[in-house]
């Protein structure tokens, strides 16, 4: 799914189910990990609820970033930084206000009407929303239908169309070369769109807030989408308050968009404020890219010559300086990213096919020391299960919140005595492991390499010696941990981010036995527990949100207790805002800035 902070690597359409925390994200956090030195004087500010209230119109906002978006086409964008550009420019059926994780109607007028059997979703759309030049006409339901259909074509290989919209009736089993109609999406009139599913789905509604549902005018986009690979992204038409600056023909490439250098948003002249909930304060927004030195980026923001960090956290020294300065500390906000890091243990091979050995590992790991390898408390909260705190009221509390911890220890520093007791239950004399060395495939750079070192050191306490294979972060995923045949006993550097605020997006692809794939696998522990599989099959179609969250919260507990994976950190992303702006954060998007809500003071 979306990369956490920096560049996201897309692994092709086949990898659609997989959501990785990426190499650069890891590096970026490495840098956070080194931040500070003394205790910060001020309390760390939370990014939750930072909604940009009290802004006034006008001015230019500059977002600084290290790298470019993954795709400029809204149908392909699948990276948190790209979403910073997509959501002010395109209007999906549903979206989110700044500072919130609640879905609100956007292109839609109200919440969808769901049929009693949970298989039909009817969405009524707003009237009077118009496309930006050069299309200029009113947006209709056919534009949304086409937008989703193009995601299933080979020319617009969306990473998630199959995952979340694959349950629609009439979805082709093999991607057609160019967009083809899907019978399960119907448009009875200009402002109504009906989705027919083959089976009820609890996550479908959440998926309607993904950028794939943002309208695309077929009569204009066809010629681009009919190419082998669509270049509609370079000629895209906006429906939101902003548009990427284009020329008369609609071309943005080389006009408002220079890949790797800058993306320039100007007001969409056809936007009508009363059709939208976005305040859209600023007249112009510039995404200035290529700040490979995050230290320079930070200094520019503090000096007010840039306004916010778009894709990377400030570096160590700067975070230390900022958090220990009362005035500067007010400019920095820490927002939970939706997801977390955990240590999967290969449940299909000895020694971790034994529940007690896994439990011993869960007990012996020093999660405090592990967290320190990524920067200590500033990097996030210690995780004790899988549904993370960004899922407030959406499964986090159902899974026991911060208090549920089946493998407790003082200060999370590990409990060697309990671990040894579990080892004895597993049949090891004196509670000390006596089998062959356990293999771990880890990053060859900090912080991942350091985390692996800490784990190796911890496992030695129960007599488990490890051999560490050091590779790059992407190699770790694509060659080892994502390939069940080559999967080592331990993958210490993996993590998962949710696509949107539904607990199923955290747990299904990662722990459902049915999700195990021979390549691009993301069920890293290779967990195939019939009870858990069944509980998931039962929870997925529940339409009542509260019941659904409770069901998934319970599944979270079931998974945690198998110790198939040891969760250890729920990370936070630090957003730094210049003193000249009123901050606003896409809380739902891992703490990215929300430029449609930010304003110049």
């Amino acid at each position, binding site marked *: 799914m979306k990369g956490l902070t920096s560049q996201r690597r897309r692994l092709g359409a086949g990898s659609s189910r997989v959501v990785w925390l990426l190499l650069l994200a890891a590096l970026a956090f*490495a*840098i956070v*990990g*080194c*931040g*500070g*030195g*003394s*205790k910060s004087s001020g309390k760390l500010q939370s990014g939750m609820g930072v909604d940009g209230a009290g802004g006034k119109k006008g001015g230019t906002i500059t977002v600084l970033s290290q790298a470019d978006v993954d795709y400029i086409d809204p149908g392909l964008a699948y990276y948190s930084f790209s979403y910073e550009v997509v959501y002010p420019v395109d209007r999906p059926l549903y979206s989110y206000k700044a500072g919130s994780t609640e879905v609100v109607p956007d292109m839609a007028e109200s919440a969808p009407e769901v049929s009693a059997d949970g298989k039909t979703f009817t969405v009524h759309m707003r009237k009077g929303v118009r496309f930006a030049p050069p299309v200029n006409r009113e947006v209709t339901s056919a534009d949304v239908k086409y937008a989703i259909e193009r995601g299933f074509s080979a020319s617009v290989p969306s990473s998630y169309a199959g995952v979340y919209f694959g349950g629609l009736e009439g979805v082709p089993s093999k991607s057609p070369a160019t967009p083809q109609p899907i019978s399960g999406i119907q448009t009875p009139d200009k402002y109504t769109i009906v989705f027919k599913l083959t089976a009820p789905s609890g996550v479908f509604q959440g998926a309607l807030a993904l950028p794939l549902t943002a309208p695309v005018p077929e009569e204009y986009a066809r010629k681009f989408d009919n190419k082998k690979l669509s270049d509609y992204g370079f000629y895209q038409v906006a429906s939101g308050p902003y548009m990427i600056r284009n020329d008369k023909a609609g071309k943005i490439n080389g006009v408002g968009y220079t890949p790797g250098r800058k993306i320039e948003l100007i007001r969409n002249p056809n936007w009508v404020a009363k059709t939208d909930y976005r305040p859209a304060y600023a007249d112009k927004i510039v995404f200035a890219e290529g700040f490979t030195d995050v230290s320079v980026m930070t200094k520019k923001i503090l000096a007010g010559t840039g306004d916010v960090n778009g894709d990377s956290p400030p570096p*160590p*020294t700067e975070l*230390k300086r900022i958090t220990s300065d009362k005035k500067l500390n007010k400019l920095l906000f820490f927002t939970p990213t939706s997801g977390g890091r955990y240590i999967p243990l290969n449940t299909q091979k000895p020694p971790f096919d034994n529940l007690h050995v896994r439990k011993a590992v869960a007990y012996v790991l*020093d999660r*405090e*020391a592990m*967290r*320190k*390898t*990524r*920067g*200590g*408390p*500033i990097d996030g909260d210690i995780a004790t299960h899988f549904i993370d705190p960004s899922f407030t009221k959406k499964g986090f509390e159902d899974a026991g919140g911060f208090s549920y911890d089946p493998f407790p220890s003082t200060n999370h*520093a590990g409990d060697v005595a309990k671990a040894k007791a579990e080892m004895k239950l597993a049949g090891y004399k004196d509670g000390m492991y006596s089998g062959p060395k356990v293999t771990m495939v880890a990053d*060859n*750079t*900090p*912080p991942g*390499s*350091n985390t*692996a*070192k*800490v784990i*190796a*050191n911890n496992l030695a306490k129960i007599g488990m010696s490890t*051999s*560490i*294979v*050091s*590779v*790059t972060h992407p190699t770790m995923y694509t*060659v080892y941990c994502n390939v069940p045949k080559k999967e080592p006993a331990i993958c210490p550097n993996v993590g998962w981010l949710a696509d949107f605020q539904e607990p199923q997006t955290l747990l299904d692809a990662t722990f459902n036995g049915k999700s195990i794939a021979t390549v691009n696998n993301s069920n890293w522990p290779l967990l195939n527990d019939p009870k858990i599989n069944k509980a998931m099959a039962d929870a997925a179609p529940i339409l009542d949100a509260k019941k659904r969250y409770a069901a998934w919260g319970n599944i979270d507990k079931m998974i945690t207790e198998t110790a198939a994976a040891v969760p250890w950190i729920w990370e936070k992303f630090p957003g730094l805002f210049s003193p000249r702006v009123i901050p606003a954060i896409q809380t739902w998007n891992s703490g990215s800035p929300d430029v449609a809500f930010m304003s110049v003071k």
Partner: protein
Amino acid sequence: MSTPDLIGRGDDLVEEISALDAEEIVGRGPWQLFWVRFREDKVALVSAGFIVFIVLTAICAPLFVKIGLAHPPNAQYTYETDSFGIPKGPSLHPLFLFGADSVGEDVFSRVVYGARVSLEVALIATTIAVLVGVVAGMIAGFYRGVVDTLISRFIDVMLAFPVLLLALGIASACSIGNGCLGGLIKPGAPTVIAVIAIINWTYIGRIIRGQVLSLREKEFVEAARASGAGDMAILFREILPNLVAPIIVYTTLVIPTNILLEAALSYLGVGITPPQASWGQMIADATNIFDTAWWYFAFPGAALLLTVLAFNLLGDGIRDALDPRVVD
């Protein structure tokens, strides 16, 4: 049979020496001559002393841990990093002479243990490279013809590869899974040794070939042949002793290069596997935080710099002392 002379210039040397010591004519062997010259070279002596020191340190590494001067190299002390995970600097209480690294390991201990790895890898790899190079060079130079063409062209091909890229390629191929050649070359130190040996034998091979080409035409070789000596006897008993000087000089000069190559490979993450300590790897890990934890970068860096410098200066000293052309 002739006495081994130095690079075939024995006659000149004798003249030189007799001019210097006209009064008292003492018969001195080449090694005595070498020692007389070497003794005068203070820089080389100091370097030799430093190398002895490093070697002793490496050998005694476990002793440091035993007497409490250092912690075990892979032991992690969480109290040595602050709440941000920033390591603490050099301190006496608790005793962390060179400070700690990002997982709270003792940098002093790791520098000392890193010396073991560096020296072990460099010495073993150099020995293998020199052995292979000398044998290949001698065979090529002695037999000439097709054998020479084969070996020399192969060396040319090897030399045409960009060294670091080749090393990186081989090392990364061997440092995953069970290693390469069916597990013969295991990841970690064996891989690094193999890589360095593969890359380095060619240089000495060439030098030796050249020397042998001229030596095989010398009178003492003819004499040996006339007295019925076989090829092997001539190669190893007549020619090889005359190659000792270039071998020694080359070896001392290539050791530091190999130490650096090991460090470079470890720095790039395809060398020594963690948690084993290695200077290159420490420097790589430290680069992220060198502005806040200078000790993590400085001490392994200094150890690497001084060791390489010492070997280089010693190599220069030995070359000067063995080369009769250099006159004080």
